[in-house]
């Protein structure tokens, strides 16, 4: 028996909802956490710097899929406290992973700002915090939009890794239909969702880039 198109669409929509949940939760938490990690990796206090950089190395040096598995099974295996929510495990792994990638982008951006900008702020009596938020930050934002948009677009598609611990995101839902009805097209059809999502993001990034094109940094 062939499933109705509307039925397939409904199933895929529910998967897409999970995909979006992973995406937005990761983004909202990884963006600030990444800044924190960036500060850690630039710290003048050697131990903090070394530990942060080692951590970033481990996270960037191992597959995200593996990290999802570790976060989900690890606590139960080693601390006797199984993780009850699969979605939480996915989000935690994603946040840590993406925060590390973001932190390197932030760091590159922050380090690319000329020393003269800090000095100009300092001689005008600004505090370090004021200099960072009122002088440096917007210039950094402008510079990191292209690499950030790349990373964020990758995040959209990485959400499909959640299915390794059977979280019912978009591809997982499509696979279920394929398994039950023996048809392939729903799995191909998922591409439409990703393309539309990424298309909207691309427009958004272009808009941001335009918004900040009034100055050169």
């Amino acid at each position, binding site marked *: 028996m062939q499933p109705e198109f509307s039925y397939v669409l409904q199933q895929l929509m529910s998967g897409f909802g999970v995909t979006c949940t992973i995406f937005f939760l990761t983004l909202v938490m990884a963006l600030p956490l990444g800044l924190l990690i960036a500060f850690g990796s630039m710290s003048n206090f050697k131990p903090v710097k070394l530990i942060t950089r080692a951590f970033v190395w481990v996270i960037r040096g191992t597959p995200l899929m593996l990290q999802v598995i570790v976060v989900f099974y690890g606590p139960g295996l080693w601390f006797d406290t199984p993780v009850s929510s699969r979605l939480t495990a996915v989000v935690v792994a994603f946040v840590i992973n993406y925060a590390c990638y973001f932190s390197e982008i932030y760091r590159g951006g922050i380090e690319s700002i*000329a020393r*003269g*900008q800090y*000095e*100009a*702020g*300092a*001689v*005008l*009596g*600004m*505090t*370090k915090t*004021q200099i960072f938020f*009122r*002088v440096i930050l*917007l*210039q950094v934002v*402008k510079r990191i939009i292209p690499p950030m948009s790349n990373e964020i677009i990758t995040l959209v598609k990485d959400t499909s890794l959640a299915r390794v611990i059977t979280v019912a995101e978009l591809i997982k839902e499509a696979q279920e239909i394929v398994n039950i009805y023996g048809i392939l097209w729903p799995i191909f059809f998922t591409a439409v969702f990703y393309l539309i999502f990424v298309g909207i993001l691309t427009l958004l990034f272009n808009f941001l880039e335009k918004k900040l094109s*009034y*100055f*050169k*940094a």
Partner: protein
Amino acid sequence: MALLEVKNISKKFGSTSVLRDINFEVEKGEVLVLIGSSGSGKTTLLRCLNFLETPDTGTIVLNGETLVNAGAGVKRENENAVRKKRLHFGMVFQSFNLFPQYNVLRNVTLAMNMLSKESLKKPSPFKLSEIREYRKKCAEIYADNEKKALALIERVGLIDKINNYPCELSGGQCQRVAIARALALSPDILCFDEPTSALDPELTGEVLRVIKGLKSSDRTMIVVTHEMEFARGVADKVIFMSDGIIEETGTPEEVFGNPKSPKTRAFLSKAAEVV
């Protein structure tokens, strides 16, 4: 008593001595011009005055207040103490260092507004009347600051550019904004580090004219420059530096007209050749 007394300042970067026992004084209203070949330590000296570098030894005394006493133990001062002290000095950089995301007016008012806001008593977050009062005061102060900024921008001849961003200005215009920005905080001493070195030759004139125009009985300036003509015209006192020491000090007539040190003579004749 001199406005600024610099005594025994020395500074090493690694093993190279960049400043060696620098001593000089500046009177109120005086323009001190620092000349010297590349690498002689002029920038480093200005940076020490502006707390961008810490000297290894020596004292900096302004108006009787000891701002720096590098010999006396290496206690790290807290940020606020340093900020307060460094505001006695203003700095105009060779590379302008304007804030690219702010327009001309904002570049000049930004630090003023931040400082004025700090001097206000923070309102209690639960008392609406206090918050309203605070907002009102802020607005008044900002308006005052803007008036002051506009006067300064007018003074450097850029009143028709207040809404432009630094990327829309020429180098000479940028540097004039930087001068207005430094003046906005009314420093006791305004320092210029080669203000025209990053400019095309045809743009140096407008900046030098502005600096010359700032000369007045109550404005004290320290200017590092390679423009000898300008130096001679604007200076009340000239210091020639060589390899981290003050080789010669005097009035412009003395230093340019009748240099005593052979090093000064060699430097000046080379500078004349270039022109």
